[in-house]
C-alpha cells in the first residue's frame, strides 16, 4: 500500500470515528474527499455512508439495525450454485461516484469482442462509448445532456410523478420513503437483503400518484445521474390507487462494471387498482469461457399487491452474470390481485443461474401466472426455483405455471424445483414443466433453408422464448431478441 493511500485510509478511519457518537455535532456534512473508504464492514462504515449521504437519523438507525441482524445470519447455501466463499470484510462498501479517469481513453482501447457485440445489437457509436466506460463521455452526451433529463422530469412532474434517485427521495420525500422502505422486503428478509439494507448505495425511487397512468416508460437507462448506482442498489416503486407504471431496468448491452458482488433490493408496492409492470434485461459480465471473473448477482425483488385488484408483472431476460440468485416475487395480499412472472434465463459457458419466483396468495380470488424459459448451453447450470403458496384464507386462488428448459450440448445442466403449496380447498393450481433439446431435425430443417447453425439456434431459441418476449415493452423486445442469439454464440458447431 502506498504511503499516500495509507494516510488517506487513516484519515478516513479518523473521520469515520468522529461520526461514531450518537449525535451529529457537525451536522450531516463531511469534508472527507476520498474515492474509497477502507475495505470491510462495520458500524463505523455504515455511519460514514449514511453521513456522506446526509441521511436522517431514522435511516441510519434502520441501516444499523439491518447490520445487526445481518451479523447473525448465514449466507444461504440451498441454491443450485457454486462459487468461492465471499469475504465480506474484503469488500469496499462505499465508492464515491466513479470518475472516468480509469476507463479506456477511446473505443480503440475497448475489447474488440465487446465492440462486436455492440454492433450486433445495433447500438449507436456514441452510446457504445458510454457503455464501454470511455473516458469523458458522460451519459448525458448521448441523450442530449440535461435537456432530455429535464424534459422528462418536467413532463412527469406535470402528472405528479416522482422519479428520482433514492438519495434525493430520502431528502425530498422522506415521508414516502419512511412509509414504504422495507415494507415489502424487510431488512432481515434474507442474508443479501440485510446486507443491502445496511449499506445500500443508491438506486431509484418512483411514486405514481392516485389515478395517474405514467405517461412514459420509466427506465434507469435514461437516468443520467444514476449511471453509477453501485453494487448495492435499492429501488422502490410505489403505484398509488389506480395508478399505472411500466418500469424498465438494465439494458441489453454488456456493461463494464468493476464490482463483482451485486446485492440489490427492489421493492414494488401496488395499492388498490394499481398496476406495475417491471421489466429487466440483465447482461452483466458473465466471466470468460472458463468461468473466470464475472458478476455475482444476488438480488431480492419483491412486489406487494397490497390492496384489492392490484397487479404486478415481472418480466426478465437474464443473460449475464457468472452467478445469478434471483427470485422476483409477488405477495398477493389484496383481493382479486394478480401477479405475473415471465422469465427467460440463458446460461452459457460456466454461468450458473438459480432463478424463479414466489407467488404468495393471501387475498381472495387472487391469480398468478408464471412462464419461465431456461436455456442452458456450454457447461452452465440453469435452475428454475419457484414457489406457489396458497394461504388457508385465500379462497378462489388460481395459478398457472409453465417452466420449460432447453438444453444445448451435453455438458450443461437444467433443473426445475417448484414448490406447490395449497392450503385452501378452492385453489386451482396447475404446473407444467418440460425439458428438451434442440432437435437435430429442427437444426437440419433451418440449415437446409440457408441459415448457418448459429442463426438456426437463435431462431429456434427465440421461438422457444416467444411467450415471454411478447411481454416485454416493444423496444426492449427487439433488442432482447438479438441478445438471445448473441448469448448463445459458440454453443453449437
Amino acid at each position: 500500500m502506498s504511503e499516500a493511500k495509507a494516510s488517506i485510509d487513516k484519515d478516513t478511519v479518523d473521520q469515520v470515528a468522529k461520526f461514531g457518537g450518537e449525535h451529529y455535532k457537525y451536522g450531516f456534512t463531511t469534508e472527507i474527499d476520498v474515492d474509497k473508504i477502507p475495505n470491510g464492514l462495520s458500524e463505523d462504515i455504515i455511519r460514514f455512508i449514511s453521513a456522506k449521504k446526509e441521511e436522517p437519523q431514522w435511516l441510519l438507525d434502520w441501516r444499523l439495525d439491518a447490520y445487526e441482524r445481518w451479523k447473525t445470519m448465514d449466507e444461504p447455501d440451498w441454491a443450485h450454485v457454486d462459487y468461492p466463499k465471499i469475504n465480506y470484510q474484503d469488500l469496499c462498501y462505499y465508492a464515491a461516484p466513479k470518475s472516468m479517469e480509469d476507463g479506456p481513453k477511446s473505443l480503440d482501447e475497448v475489447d474488440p469482442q465487446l465492440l462486436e457485440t455492440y454492433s450486433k445489437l445495433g447500438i449507436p457509436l456514441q452510446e457504445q462509448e458510454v457503455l464501454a466506460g470511455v473516458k469523458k463521455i458522460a451519459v448525458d452526451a448521448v441523450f442530449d445532456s440535461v435537456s432530455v433529463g429535464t424534459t422528462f422530469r418536467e413532463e412527469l412532474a406535470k402528472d405528479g410523478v416522482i422519479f428520482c434517485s433514492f438519495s434525493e427521495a430520502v431528502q425530498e420525500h422522506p415521508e414516502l420513503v419512511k412509509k414504504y422502505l422495507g415494507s415489502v422486503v424487510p431488512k432481515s428478509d434474507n442474508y443479501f437483503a440485510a446486507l443491502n439494507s445496511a449499506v445500500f448505495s443508491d438506486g431509484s425511487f418512483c411514486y405514481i400518484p392516485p389515478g395517474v397512468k405514467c405517461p412514459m416508460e420509466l427506465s434507469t437507462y435514461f437516468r443520467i445521474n444514476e449511471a453509477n448506482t453501485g453494487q448495492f442498489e435499492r429501488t422502490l416503486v410505489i403505484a398509488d390507487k389506480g395508478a399505472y407504471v411500466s418500469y424498465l431496468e438494465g439494458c441489453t448491452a454488456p456493461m463494464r462494471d468493476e464490482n463483482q458482488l451485486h446485492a440489490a433490493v427492489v421493492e414494488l408496492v401496488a395499492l388498490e387498482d394499481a398496476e406495475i409492470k417491471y421489466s429487466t434485461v440483465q447482461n452483466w459480465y458473465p466471466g470468460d469461457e472458463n468461468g473466470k471473473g464475472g458478476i455475482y448477482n444476488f438480488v431480492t425483488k419483491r412486489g406487494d399487491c397490497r390492496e384489492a385488484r392490484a397487479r404486478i408483472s415481472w418480466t426478465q431476460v437474464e443473460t449475464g452474470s457468472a452467478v445469478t440468485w434471483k427470485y422476483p416475487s409477488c405477495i398477493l395480499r389484496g383481493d382479486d390481485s394478480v401477479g405475473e412472472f415471465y422469465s427467460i434465463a440463458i446460461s452459457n459457458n460456466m454461468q450458473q443461474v438459480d432463478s424463479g419466483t414466489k407467488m404468495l396468495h393471501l387475498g381472495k380470488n387472487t391469480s398468478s401466472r408464471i412462464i419461465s424459459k431456461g436455456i442452458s448451453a456450454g457447461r452452465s447450470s440453469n435452475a428454475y426455483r419457484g414457489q406457489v403458496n396458497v394461504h388457508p384464507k385465500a379462497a378462489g386462488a388460481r395459478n398457472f405455471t409453465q417452466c420449460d428448459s432447453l438444453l444445448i450440448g451435453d455438458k450443461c445442466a437444467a433443473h426445475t424445483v417448484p414448490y406447490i403449496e395449497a392450503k385452501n380447498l378452492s385453489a386451482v393450481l396447475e404446473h407444467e414443466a418440460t425439458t428438451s433439446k434442440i432437435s437435430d431435425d429442427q437444426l437440419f430443417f433451418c440449415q437446409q433453408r440457408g441459415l448457418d447453425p448459429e442463426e438456426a439456434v437463435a431462431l429456434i431459441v427465440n421461438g422457444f422464448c416467444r411467450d415471454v418476449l411478447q411481454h416485454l415493452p416493444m423496444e426492449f423486445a427487439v433488442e432482447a431478441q438479438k441478445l438471445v442469439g448473441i448469448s448463445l454464440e459458440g454453443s453449437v458447431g
Partner: protein
Amino acid sequence: MLDAQSYFDRVSGDLSGDATARAAALAAAEAAGLPTRRQEAWHYTDVTRLLGKRTDDTIGAVDFAPLNPLMAVFDNGALREAPVAEGLALHDFEAAPIGDNAMLNYNAALAQGGLNAEISGALAQPLIVTTQGDEPVHLHHKITLAPKAKAVLVDNHMSCGYTNARFDITLGADAELTLIRVQQAGHQIGTSQIELAENARVKSVALVTGGALARHEANVAFAAAGAHAELHSAVLGRGDNHADFTYVIDHQAAETSSNTTAYNVLDAASRGVFQGKVIVRKDAQHVDAQMQTRAMMLSEGAEMDAKPELEIYADDVVCAHGSAIGELDKDALFFLRARGLDEASAIYLLVAGFIEQVLSHIDDEVMADSLRALVAQKIAAQFSIEGAA
C-alpha cells in the same frame, strides 16, 4: 420411539447380531437426531410433531385370500408366519451398515428382523409381508430378484403403532417386480432402496388410506440400460392424516425410463405431500422420465404440497412433470346429480374414479379388486354412504 436410547437399552438384549455395531448406528442416528423441517427432504413433514399425534383410523381387512398368497406376518416385529415356495429362499437377517440417513441408522440400530428373501424364478403367488401390532417396530427387509425372476410383493401395513421399515430391493437383469403397498393407520417411516439392473422393471402401486404419519420414501437407481420404473401412489386422506411420498428417481444409465403418478384426495384436515426428484446423470442420454401429481381438495383445512423436481445433466432426454391441484369438479358433480345420483353417491363415484387412476395400474385384477374394496369401504365410512354396489 422418541427416547431411542432408553428404548435401545431395554430391547438391545433381545436383538440379534453385533451389539457394538448397533450401538454405533444408534449413536450416529442420535447425533443427527430425527429429521427436522429445516432439512429439505423433510420440509413438509414435521416428524417430531406428527409422532405425537394420534388418529382414529380403523384397520379394514384387505381380503387377499382369493390370491392364495405366500404370507410373512410380522406381529409387533416378530415373524409369526414364514412363507415357503419354490423359487423363494429365505436367509438369515443381515445388519445394515451405518449411512448418512438418520432414519436408516435408527433402523440399523433397532431392527428386530425382517424378511431376507431371494427370489430365483417366477413366483406364482404374491408374497405378502404384513406388519401388525401396536408396538414400535423396526424392520429391515431385503428382497433380491435374480436375473429374469418375477414376483409380486405386497407391503401390507396394518400396524397402529410406530414402524420404521427399510426395504432393500435389488432386481437382476430382466427381472420384474410388482410392489403393492397399503397403509391404513399408525406412524410409518418407510424407506425403500431399489436398484435396477439391465432391463429390470419395477412397478410400485401404493395406497394410503390413513395414519397420523405415512412417509414413503423410495430411492430408485437405474444402473443399466433398459431399466424401467413406475411409481404410482394414491392417498385417501381424512381427519388428521399425513401422507408423504418422497422419491429420488436417479437415472444413472442411458436408455432408462420412469413414470410417476400421484393422486391425492384430501378431506378434513388431512395433508398430502409429494416430493419427486428426477435426476438424469451426465451421459444418461435418451432417458424418458414423466411425473404427474394430482390432488383433489375436499375440505377447508386440507393441504397439498407438491414438489416435482427435475435435475438434468444430459441433453437428449424427454423429461416432463405436471401438477394440478383443485377441488372436486363441480361440473362433473352436476353431471352426475342431473342423472339422478344423490350427492354422496356422486362424490363417491368421483373420488373412487380418481383413485382408480392409480389402482388401474395393477395388472392382477383380483389384487386390484381387493384394494378397490378397501377404497370403497374407506370412502363409504368417510361420506357415510353405501359404498360400491
